[in-house]
């Protein structure tokens, strides 16, 4: 037992008072009409390269919106926490932010988080969420009614690649190389089935353990299969360059492709010699793209004169679609609830994103099934369009 002196009581009282004040202040200080966009953002950890870009993209778009007077006259406030790309930290960030702010929009950092938080989203019913995950599983409006993704899901990305391949070479032989993660495995099953219906043959599926350094044995398997096209999924950079280099040395004539998160121009450039001819699917125009009308890209280039990554564009586009959903909800005189926001989002039809997507988009469900094939031009050191925009029918 300790003796309670006056000093103890006073200091305890002061501490309690300070705690209360700190706890209460954010809610009290919050402007009554502000719309809050919360975010579990991976600024450190394995996904930090993307998280940093996403963070900047969201901030830049909100700056544009707020400078122009906000969404229906209401400013949008961005509150983010670093998660280290760990689900438990993401959930903690969500709880912290939602307890301090009246959050209407939320950016989540991973498939794991999106799945974990879904029951809580539905219980609250006040938030529309999107994020860094393009998991096929999340593209189900019945199971995930308050979520969406700002592009095609991973299976749809494969769908776009496979349609392109079927056009280029009927009956082509394919190999899928993917990481043994939720991210990596996501599109493999459905894409195998789709390949069959398109008359393509999947001759090899190679799984690599996450974080594996040396892929020589996997390349040996690839050589035996002799595919015409090899699609990588579930990676950012490593081990793609080493795979391609070794495969080329063995005289393999395959073409190599990737999906969104391995399509950043500066990342592909880092592949060195292996980069030449590397292809993949991208839902957005690249930062430097000057073809056609893209006033939004112009604005980005004015705000940031140096190259911005695809992750930046992803954050930017996600914030744009969220704000558009909020705008439509408020314009219809409805309250900002999760369901109303989602209905607002789903009312987006043939919508021009300022040229960020190359074609007008519609969001009938949880994804935006649009993309284009780009290929790396070694001379220009840039990803260049290799196909028209491909729209998958829902």
């Amino acid at each position, binding site marked *: 037992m300790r003796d309670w002196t006056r000093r103890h009581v006073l200091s305890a009282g002061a501490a309690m008072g300070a705690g209360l004040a700190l706890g209460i202040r954010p809610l009290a200080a919050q402007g009554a009409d502000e719309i809050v966009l919360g975010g579990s953002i991976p600024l*450190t950890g394995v996904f930090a390269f993307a998280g940093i870009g996403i963070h900047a993209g969201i901030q830049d778009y909100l700056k544009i919106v707020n400078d122009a007077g906000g969404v229906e006259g209401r400013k949008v406030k961005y509150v983010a926490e670093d998660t280290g790309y760990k689900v438990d930290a993401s959930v903690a960030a969500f709880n912290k932010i939602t307890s301090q702010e009246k959050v209407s929009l939320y950016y989540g950092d991973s498939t794991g988080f999106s799945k974990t938080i879904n029951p809580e989203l539905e219980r609250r019913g006040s938030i529309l969420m999107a994020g860094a995950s393009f998991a096929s599983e999340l593209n189900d409006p019945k199971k995930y009614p308050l979520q969406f993704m700002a592009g095609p899901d991973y299976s749809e990305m494969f769908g776009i690649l496979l349609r392109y391949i079927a056009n280029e070479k009927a009956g082509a032989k394919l190999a899928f190389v993917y990481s*043994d993660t939720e991210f990596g495995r996501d599109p493999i099953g459905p894409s195998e089935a789709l390949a069959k219906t398109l008359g393509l043959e999947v001759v090899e599926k190679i*799984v690599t353990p996450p974080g594996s350094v040396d892929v*020589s*044995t996997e390349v040996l398997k690839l050589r035996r299969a002799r595919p015409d096209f090899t699609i990588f999924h579930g990676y950012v*950079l490593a081990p793609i360059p080493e795979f391609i280099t070794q495969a080329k*040395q063995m005289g393999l004539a395959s073409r190599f492709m990737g999906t969104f998160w391995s399509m950043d121009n*500066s990342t592909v450039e*880092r592949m060195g010699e292996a980069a030449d001819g590397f292809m993949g699917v991208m839902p957005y125009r690249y930062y430097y793209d000057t073809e056609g009308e893209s006033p939004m890209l112009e604005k980005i280039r004015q705000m940031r004169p140096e190259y911005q990554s695809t992750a930046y564009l992803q954050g930017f586009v996600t914030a744009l679609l969220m704000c558009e959903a909020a705008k439509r909800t408020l314009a219809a005189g409805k309250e900002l609830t999760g369901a109303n926001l989602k209905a607002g989002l789903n009312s987006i039809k043939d919508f021009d994103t300022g040229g960020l997507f190359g074609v007008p988009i519609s969001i009938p469900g949880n994804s935006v099934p649009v993309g284009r094939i780009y290929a790396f031009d070694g001379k220009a050191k840039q990803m260049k369009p290799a196909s028209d925009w491909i729209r998958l029918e829902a």
Partner: protein
Amino acid sequence: MTDWLFLTEVFLAGLGSGALYAVTGVAFVLIYKATRVVNLAIGEILMLGGYAFFGAAAGWHLPAWVALPVAILAGALVGAVVERGLIRPMLGESPISVFMVTIGLGSILAGFVQIVWGADPLRLPEFLPSAPIFIGEAYVAPKVAYGFLAAMVVVTAFVLGLRFSRGGVALKATAADQAAAYSVGIDVPRVFSLSWIVACGVAAGAGVLVGAIGGISPTMGVFGLSVLVVVIVGGLDSMAGALVGGLFIGVVEAFAGTFLGGEYRFLVTFSILILILMVRPYGLFGTHEIERL
């Protein structure tokens, strides 16, 4: 379906990745042998070596043969500072405390690298010859082959050095009995320091090899964890154990990856770990008194 040429190629590729395990394993063993500390930050020091090489070769445009020693020296310097600043004051504390310090050190190094070089995965400038190598008709990826050669030279040098050099004998004496080593005039604190300096230098050098093959990123330190398995299998205080354990795990993983699929690689590795821990808790070549945490 399965032909001998293919099996040989898989075997050689396995030896290649095993050699990377072995050379990193040497760093674990050196520190453990001298100081009885399991240094979990070895993976991050390896990463730091990769980045130091990158900084010297791509940032300062030094040729590879200068950048490599720079990376090794950077690792050695970190080893010296860490030993004097963090580990020596912990002398006499429980092994768990020291273990935790090395875990913390790992996060600090990963954070430092991210602040200096950013979070993007990077590629090291090409410095190994890129002409494909054929042993008979079997193809070996050039980087893997040169990595293997370099790793073998280093590991062999350490196995011989420990046996025949004065420093090696001093280290073995310290490992066997610190008090007795003191009494015959061996400067035990200096042995501690040197073991950290040399081990961290080796880890940094290994980081350059690993980075040349798989690229560098602030998270490449996880490679250290795979190597921890190797040294536990081989015996935490045995150089030969690191060599044999590394090559063995490398080859087993290669065959598991080829015939069972990549998702079974780690399953097989960790099954071997459990088996070894049950049958020989001190590893294949370790001495019996290794402390279990």
